[in-house]
């Protein structure tokens, strides 16, 4: 393809818009979260709450001054925004570790979990969905539909516990929790993957059914192409757009589900970090985690946009 100056400008405008959008999202979300979390408790009290003893107003003021929570909200929030720009997110209220270090340690764990789960779900749902579409109304389709229904109905923590009971306690094959070896990834990603697959499989089936009725599939079949070529090369590519959109949207929802999965499997990711931060009212950590999650979702949307172009040349940055 010929590269024109016009195209460069389109790309630049597009990226600029995306960056503005990201900034807007981060400000709106963090402003809301920071304000709301301050309405429901006091980190200084939480520090004493382990069961220490006497806790007078003077003690609390001393600790609040050290934490900086005695300042008005807008100043605290401004400090946080300044920290975002200067890449200094401050220190955790709980223990004083630099927030950037905590995020840097936790983010990769969550990303690995998220992407592997996504991959597991895609690998499972596409063949199953296609199979269901091809054998519409037959036994296979019914079985897959039941699997999907059951899968959607599973609460993720219950499924996780059942997997642990089976693979760790009864069979002794996999470690019940923790992140480390290859084996430790199997159950968390399988839990997440099965639940995602349950919805994805229906989507793939529906999209595929529509495509299979179109004329070019008939033509492809008439040409005498093998069935797998028809399905995976011609049909799948044409129903890819709704699938990509949906997988992208799902990613955001999945990050929420990962909080539970991380907790059940003692996975040291952003979910665990956020969970502990909420419990301790650790504002700096909470604000940082929320920011990272918001940026992640913006980034995934960007990837989805790019993926459209890759799959369908007609919608390349028009």
């Amino acid at each position, binding site marked *: 393809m010929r590269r024109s100056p016009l195209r460069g400008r389109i790309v630049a405008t597009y990226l600029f818009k995306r960056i503005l959008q990201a900034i807007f999202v981060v400000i709106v979300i963090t402003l809301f979260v920071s304000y709301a979390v301050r309405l*429901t*408790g*006091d*980190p200084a*009290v*939480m*520090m*004493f*709450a*382990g*069961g*220490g*003893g*006497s*806790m*007078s*107003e003077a*003690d*609390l003021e*001393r*600790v609040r001054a*050290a*934490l900086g929570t005695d300042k008005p909200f807008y100043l605290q929030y401004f400090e946080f925004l300044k920290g975002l720009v200067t890449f200094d997110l401050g*220190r*955790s209220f*709980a*223990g*004083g*570790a630099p927030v950037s270090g*905590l995020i840097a*340690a*936790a983010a990769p764990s969550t990303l690995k979990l998220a992407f592997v789960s996504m991959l597991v779900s895609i690998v499972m749902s596409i063949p199953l969905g296609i199979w269901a579409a091809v054998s519409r109304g037959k036994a296979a389709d019914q079985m897959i539909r039941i699997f999907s229904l059951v899968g959607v109905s599973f609460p993720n923590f219950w499924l996780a*516990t059942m997997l*642990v*009971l089976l693979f*760790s*306690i009864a069979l*002794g094959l996999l*470690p*019940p*929790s*923790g*992140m480390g070896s290859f084996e430790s990834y199997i159950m968390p990603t399988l839990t997440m993957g099965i639940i995602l697959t349950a919805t994805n499989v229906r989507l793939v089936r529906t999209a595929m059914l529509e495509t299979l009725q179109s004329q070019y599939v008939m033509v492809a079949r008439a040409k005498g192409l093998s069935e797998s070529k028809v399905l995976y090369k011609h049909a799948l590519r044409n129903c890819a757009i709704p699938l990509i959109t949906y997988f992208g949207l799902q990613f955001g929802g999945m990050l929420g589900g990962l909080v539970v999965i991380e*907790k*059940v*499997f*003692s996975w*040291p990711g952003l979910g*665990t*970090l956020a969970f*502990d931060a*909420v*419990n*301790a*009212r650790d504002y700096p950590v909470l604000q940082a985690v929320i920011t990272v999650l918001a940026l992640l979702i913006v980034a995934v949307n960007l990837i989805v946009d790019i993926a459209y172009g890759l799959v369908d040349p007609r919608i390349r940055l028009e």
Partner: protein
Amino acid sequence: MKIIRRGILAGLTAVALGGVSFATVPAYAEGTVTVSVPQDPASWDPIDTFLVAWAAVATNIYDGLTYRGPDMEIVPGLAESWEELDDGKRIRFKLRQNVKFHNGEEFNAEAVKFTFDRLLGDEGAKGPQRSNYTSIESVEIIDPFTVDFKLNAPDPVLLTKLAGYGAMIVPPKYVQEQGEAFNLNPVGTGAFKFVSYNPKVDIKLEANPDYWGGAPKISELNYRFISEPSTAVAELQAGRIDIVVPPTIPIAMIPVIEGASNLEVVSVPGPTVDALRFNTRDGITTDLKVRQAIIMSVDRATIVEAILAGQASEIVSFQSALSFGHDPELQGLPYDPEGAKKLLAEAGIPQGAPLQIDIRSNDASMNEVAQVIVSYLQAVGLNPTIKPYETSTLISDIIPQGKTGAMFQQKWGGWTFDYDNTAYAMYHTGEQWNPYGNDPELDRLLESQRPLTDRNEREKVLKEIGKYVADQALELPLYNTNAIYGVSKRVKNFVAAPDNRLKLNEITVE
């Protein structure tokens, strides 16, 4: 009972071993023990935290001047002996000699002074621990191994406090060099040395062969942070964790552990007490008769037996039976629904009067107990509702700001096992845990016992406080729950600590 059985077993084993192979048991044995604790304290600096999870680990890294073992007795730690001077306003400690910190620094009077200057100075002001030690005016060095603690006023609980949390002795040079980094690289004089810390994952320790109390009998000690009870129990069942430290295992999970042949449950009375306290400022619970009626409507013995599976004991005042100031003679109001109805009628409370009970939403036992209490209260004609709050919201907003319903759950750890520590925080005017009460008589009683150095006299006042609170019916006292440990049978010589501060230098593993 389990403890006793273990003790006898351990004794028998020791005798058997002694007879057969006394000479072959090495002082320093190989072996790794992995323990799960419910939380990552995030900082290992003694002055930063009040978390039980911190203490469960750090007891093995640091020592205090005094030490309180599982039997709850205060014994010498880094101080070999002490004496009270100036009517209790000065305590002189003789320090243990030839003790080194893990980094090689020598333990001496200098280190003690540094530790407390730091705790009471700017560094300590940022954390919660300092408020426990404000009776200390200064620490004076008499000679390299003698220090004097000069006190503002006699503090009868000080020796206990010196065994806990903020009073752990830290190495002066190292702390100054490290600054904030000390949080993540702790060094003490304890039985185990710090090896590595991985936030939200684990902390690893190794045996300190030069420990003044004798080298530990295992070589490595790892702690994993696991907050989810079912995960901790699964790890225990899978044999990847040897000890689960409370508060992790809920009562409902005990049968699972007991059902596994390689595991056992060890449970001892702990410091944790639960009560439903009354809002004495607004609503029907401002009336003493109503409060008494509510207490009389609830059959606590049945709750302990049926819901808590005997893993708790009834309380009459807000403290465990191990606590100093506990009065075994004190009689609570009896379970008497008919009497309760009469009192409510006298108070002019109409049938079906509403009553809100605030509880912690993540407290599984309390959620069940509260349901039962609701039905007891319905039986005497009240109409209670349960309002579960996220725990942090309840304890850091609803209670201190005085926004509770008629009754609210108070859970209390009371690690000092001294009623003063609890009662002062609960009932003294102006304390954050006391949003409603301001009773000059109670304030006077609470203040009067603090400077008393005569144990008997102080105990008398503490008992008086307990009786006063019971007479005023300031709370519906519920129960003292056990500290429940899950332990793998490969661990030998395990002695459960009521306060979760498990020192593991004596245990061995197969």
